[in-house]
């Protein structure tokens, strides 16, 4: 059975993490949520409210990881999901997180990210790819030698990497990721 890894942490977007997790379970994949430590993750409700120039944060659902980043064995997984929001800012600084992402890049396995999640990809050395994400991370994408795409409500697929802008396009994100999995013969059961 195909096995999907979700790498996340405190301050992940509640909406993105939940949609990714439950969508993979609905499709029948085996899912492991991995975080820096094994404890309830404080996810956040990230939303640009009326009159605000940037998203505000409220405390979202608590999600329990199945494993720590140190415990996961990347070769056992067929694809990687990197939900976004502020968790990505911290995760990209963890050598173990980078090691895991390197495995998926080096073995050309599907990776999908959204919002601030692509910051993890560029920290892992991704270069020369077409990508999108939250508009605020455009400098990071360009500065790292990748090409920024103003994708709006469309997913950007460049080889094994799927990126999507932000809330509310969770459905665009998962549709493109599932379609890539299908293309590559990665089936639930």
């Amino acid at each position, binding site marked *: 059975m195909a096995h999907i890894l979700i790498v996340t942490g405190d301050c992940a977007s*509640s*909406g993105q993490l*939940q*949609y990714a*997790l*439950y*969508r993979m*379970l*609905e499709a029948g994949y085996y899912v492991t949520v991995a975080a820096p430590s094994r404890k309830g993750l404080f996810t956040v*409700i990230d*939303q640009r*409210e*009326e009159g605000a120039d940037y998203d505000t944060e*409220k*405390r*979202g*659902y*608590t999600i329990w990881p199945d494993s720590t980043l140190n415990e996961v064995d990347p070769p056992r997984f067929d694809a990687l999901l990197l939900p976004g929001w502020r968790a990505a800012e911290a995760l990209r600084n963890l050598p173990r997180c980078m090691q895991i992402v390197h495995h998926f890049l080096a073995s050309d396995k599907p990776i999908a990210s959204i919002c601030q999640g692509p910051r993890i990809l560029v920290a892992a050395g991704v270069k020369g790819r077409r990508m999108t994400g939250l508009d605020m991370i455009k400098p990071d994408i360009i500065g790292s030698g990748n090409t920024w795409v103003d994708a709006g409500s469309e997913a950007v697929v460049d080889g094994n990497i799927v990126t999507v802008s932000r*809330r*509310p396009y*969770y*459905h*665009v994100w*998962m*549709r493109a990721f599932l379609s890539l999995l299908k293309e590559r013969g990665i089936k639930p059961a």
Partner: protein
Amino acid sequence: MARILIIAGDGSSSGHLGYAVNRMLEEGFEITVAAPVKKPLITVVHEMEEGMSTYVERPGYIMHADASLDEIDPFTFDALLLPGGRAPEYLRNNKRCIEVVRHFVEHDKPIGTICHGPLILAAAVKGRRMTGVDFIKPDIIASGNTWVDARHEAVVHGNIVTAWLTPYYYVWIREFLSLLKQRGIKPS
């Protein structure tokens, strides 16, 4: 194209409503979120916390209602989703809401609900097997329906799909989509 109606309001579960909306869009259905008033809805995060015997509530995502309950014509929809949260407690007292729900019951159109959502059904149907969050068991029984301790399985009785609670969104929607497929209700 098949059309799905989602009835929600302030106090709807952020998780249920969010998953239902995005999942129906992912499938390619046309959706309408209808609420008592067409306005941004303040959804909620319900969660058990250590030391608490019942759940706590925090504010969730603000979700947009596309239409008011008065504006919609139930005949133009093929199926109904009723997310849970605290909203069902007051929606079941809204006459127009119950009128709309009865349309789906009488026309045997698929209805999917979860958690506190069956409170709305209990105000409109009798004699069905149902589940939901454990706290509403007295309401289900008192309304002449049969309570099922379904845990992580969905309960399907005719056109009605009910599921337990967070995090079983995927159980809820998987079963609802399977019922739509069985009845030939396709995205396009």
